[in-house]
């Protein structure tokens, strides 16, 4: 029985849970869009005094900040009591592609080469995480949403702008993975 709770989730079950979360939020009068929280945090920190983009009633977005807090708790539960400690199974071709870039075989969910503190403590390691975050924050607001807002909510309601944004996500991801990774790593 305990295995039922700790085993990893299949792709189809996960997909159904994602759309269910979107529908539950719609039922409670809200819409699924995670990156809006980044704007709310800026506004709550007082950025609205100088920058009009952050001058809005951020308290109406508190529900989403609570959702974010829940996501952190969910991550902690998954990493502790619900942790199966199964090794992650990554496609052998991805593993060998990454080995050519200097990444060792996966032992956990994240590569030590990027997320271990000894990697983060180097200038290059720090810059990778910092630039990654900067691009995600800037890009998601410029595009008006992230994976949840565009790829899930937007595509589900058949919105062309969201399709364009998702195409952009893939242009950027392919550019980074296939052109820039060999230069960075």
């Amino acid at each position, binding site marked *: 029985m305990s295995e039922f709770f700790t085993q990893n989730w299949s792709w189809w079950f996960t997909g159904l849970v994602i759309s269910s979360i979107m529908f539950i939020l719609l039922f409670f009068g809200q819409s699924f869009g995670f990156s809006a929280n980044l704007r709310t945090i800026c506004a709550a920190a007082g950025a609205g005094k100088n920058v009009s983009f952050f001058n809005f009633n951020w308290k109406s977005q508190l529900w989403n900040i609570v959702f974010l807090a829940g996501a952190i708790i969910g991550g902690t539960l998954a990493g502790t009591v619900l942790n199966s400690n199964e090794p992650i199974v990554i496609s052998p071709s991805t593993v060998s592609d990454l080995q050519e870039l200097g990444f060792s075989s996966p032992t956990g969910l994240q590569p030590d080469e990027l997320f271990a*503190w000894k990697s983060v403590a180097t200038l290059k390691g720090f810059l990778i995480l910092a630039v990654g975050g900067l691009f995600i924050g800037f890009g998601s*607001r410029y595009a008006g949403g992230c994976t949840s807002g565009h790829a899930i909510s937007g595509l589900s309601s058949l919105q062309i*702008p969201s399709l364009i944004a998702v195409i952009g996500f893939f242009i950027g991801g392919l550019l980074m993975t296939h052109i820039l990774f060999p230069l960075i790593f």
Partner: protein
Amino acid sequence: MKFLKFLVIGILFGIMMAKSEIISWYRIQEMFRFQSFHMFGIIGIAVISGIIGVMVIKKFNIKDFNGNPIVFHPKEKSIIRYIVGGTIFGMGWALSGACPGPMVVNIGFGFLSMGIVFLFSILGTYLYGVLRSKLPH
């Protein structure tokens, strides 16, 4: 009390993101190298079931728990902001292996260095707000 339900949904979201390994940098690499069905299957099922559900909501005018109609706000028409903004986002997604949701789930899971990505994503959002009037939309 009215926020409790959003906390519970958030916890479900966090568990789902971790148990499906969406929070893994390796899974995002597999996706951008087209070497695994996993991420495409997840997004595909989510979108297909999402489209069906939205059609049902519209057809039967299903109301939310307050009795208000469920409305889908059309996103403003543009190409440049979606393609340029989306490309910048995608570059960051591939580099750090996490979009905003998975970032915080990673922090909860124990990958605390993801906090750097999260802090800089807030800074990136702030920079967008500062530069917004100068950018083509």
